[in-house]
């Protein structure tokens, strides 16, 4: 079952990832964006294993299945929304700003 060691490990790893992400941004590293996103997902995995113990217990198959299917829905929701809204933003900019659209799409009058 859950032990003090697992909670302590999870806690210390989470602190490390949090501080890593914080300093990546405050020191304005060039690759800060993938670093902070990567560290966020790593911390998610750490907390799922060391705090939530999704891989343990009588119902671990059901718990993991429901979690993974929800993460799938969440990914589609967020990635899909960003894709659609960016697409709309690009195609619905006011007349003066549509220069770049006309140039990109190679539209000739």
């Amino acid at each position, binding site marked *: *079952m*859950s*032990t*003090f060691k697992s*909670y*302590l490990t*999870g*806690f210390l790893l*989470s*602190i490390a990832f*949090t*501080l890593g*992400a*914080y300093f990546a*941004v*405050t020191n304005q590293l060039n690759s*800060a*964006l993938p670093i*902070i*996103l990567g*560290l*966020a997902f790593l*911390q*998610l995995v750490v*907390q*799922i294993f060391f*705090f*939530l113990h999704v891989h343990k*217990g*009588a*119902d671990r198959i*059901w*718990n993991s299945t*429901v*979690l993974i*299917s*929800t993460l799938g*829905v*969440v990914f589609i*929701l*967020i990635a899909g*929304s*960003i894709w659609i*809204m960016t697409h709309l933003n690009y195609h619905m900019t006011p007349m003066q700003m549509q220069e770049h659209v006309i140039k990109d799409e190679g539209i000739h009058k």
Partner: protein
Amino acid sequence: MEETTNQNQLGHHDDSKTQLGFWIYLMTDLMMFATLFATYAALSGSTFGGPSGAELFSLPDALKLTLILLTSSFTCGLAMLAAHKADKKQTIFWFVITLILGLSFLFFELKEFSHLIAEGHAWKNSAFLSSFFALVGTHGLHIAVGGLWILVALKQITHLGLNGFVISKLTRLSLYWHFLDIVWIFIFTIVYLMSQV
């Protein structure tokens, strides 16, 4: 009364359906937060000529909030360890610490909100701010409800002791609390850190 006796005899391993049901609720809550994140992603650039997150957010303050909540998630875990060892005093102690940390989180977060509003950056002043307050405010509301739940749980532990019924409830409370810290990791990353990137 019969029902209560049976519930008191509930072993931790007999209530797995209850825990699964609560877990599925948490997954729907995750989907709701996902829509708030998607909305923030779409609207974070719409500042209506006003300042962006980069100008408004204090990263040291956000780090403070993050570390407070992370520690409270850890102390919540310690409370559950004590509960499984049937140590009533330790369980209460760690849940009280968790509550204090949760309330400090809310205190500093509300301080940040009132500062923003006082400077004229309320939720109605731009789409960016609307989506910010909706996302971070909803999370804060969840923390407040969680704090209330900890208070109720403390009373239950005091009056009913650490029987199967109470431990089953505490397990769900700890799932809820860990879940909120996980959501906050992404708020910290996507709202606060990414504003400066």
